[in-house]
């Protein structure tokens, strides 16, 4: 790899002058940054392509690709980066079913999902992400039926009450239905109350 000399100024310039970079220097720094990313990013880029490609698959092929994506996340030393890639890639797509695709993948990732959620919560601290982002995570938690699922749904309630109600329905156990009953009577939003009431009715059929 060739080395790049940034400082091309005459040697008689002062220290202050040396710190004043010229546009050409920024170009060198930018190129160096890209070069550095190129050595780290291929796996993530390839993964992004795989996730994007997953949306175009059908039938058995889709199951195989979904399974491969899940395996890659679970086996990775940096699952957070992969989970983030899944969410970013699918949510930025305009295809119908993008949220469901993300939920189906994330629900199968097991214990890495709660870890990701807790770390995301700790990092974000007050910044508001798109509700779809949390919708996908909460629904995936409910579908996974992990031991920590109910606690996480409760914790993330304010991020997307709609997702939390659907997740409780997906859990479908007695405690979740009891919680749905409480929501159906006490939740301020009519939309959420109706949704909870509908799910209770469905569970009792």
């Amino acid at each position, binding site marked *: 790899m060739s080395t790049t000399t940034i400082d091309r100024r005459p040697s008689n310039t002062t220290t202050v002058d040396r710190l004043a970079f010229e546009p050409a220097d920024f170009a060198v720094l930018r190129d160096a940054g890209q070069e550095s990313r190129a050595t780290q990013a291929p796996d993530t880029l390839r993964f992004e392509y795989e996730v994007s490609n997953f949306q175009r698959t*059908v039938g058995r092929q889709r199951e195989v690709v979904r399974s491969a994506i899940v395996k890659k996340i679970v086996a990775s030393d940096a699952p957070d980066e992969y989970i983030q890639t899944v969410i970013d890639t699918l949510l930025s797509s305009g295809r119908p079913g993008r*949220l469901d695709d993300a939920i*189906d993948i994330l629900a199968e990732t097991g214990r890495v999902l709660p870890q990701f959620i807790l770390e995301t919560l700790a990092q974000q601290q007050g910044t508001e992400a798109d509700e779809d982002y949390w919708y996908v995570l909460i629904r995936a938690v409910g579908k996974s039926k992990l031991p920590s699922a109910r606690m996480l749904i409760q914790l993330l309630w304010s991020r997307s009450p*709609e997702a939390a109600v659907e997740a409780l329905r997906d859990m479908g156990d007695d405690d979740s239905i009891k919680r749905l009953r409480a929501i159906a009577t006490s939740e301020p939003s009519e939309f959420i109350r109706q949704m909870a009431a509908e799910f209770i009715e469905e569970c009792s059929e």
Partner: protein
Amino acid sequence: MVEQTFSINNAWRIDPPCYVRKVDRAGHWADAATIQDKVLCSEPDDDGISVYLVSSPSDLARVAIALNANRSSLTEDLILVAIATGELAAIDASRTNGETLCKWANHLHHDLVFADAAAVSRLATTLLGAGRRPHRFKKKAMQEALDYTSNDHCYAAEPNSVHCVCEDDLPAPQTAAWLTWLRRVVARSLAGLFGKTASEK
């Protein structure tokens, strides 16, 4: 049972035929801007917005299973919204092949091609004005659809199926592809001619 559960009139109180579009979450059906951004959206390289033209409960059940074949379970809840043919006004709906496992659903697939973002917004406003709401087909309904389509050995319901009953009623693929091409060429030519005139006015 499918006749009632997947009745277009029961679900949206409109008469068939109509176009149906998948809605990712109920909350996306809020205001015109959200509908435009989250429901009536497409990939930049797509020709238009993917919809299915359904005329009967049978069509609707087949499309529902075809769409859920992309999920981890065929009986997952599915939310669909209907667009009556009359609500499209000047929006072009061209038949294109769908990409599902169900050949019948693929045959019903159309792309809604909008002239500009304003046309999408107008459609969203029209649907809200008509009091249109998305309909959720719950697990029980989807189980009915699954039973119905399995009975016909639908490829979406039974991946190991060797012949689906609906295939016998499908038009010859070559004719359909040729017609699709011709319709697109005519539609684009007309849009080029009249679209410009309309905007100049």
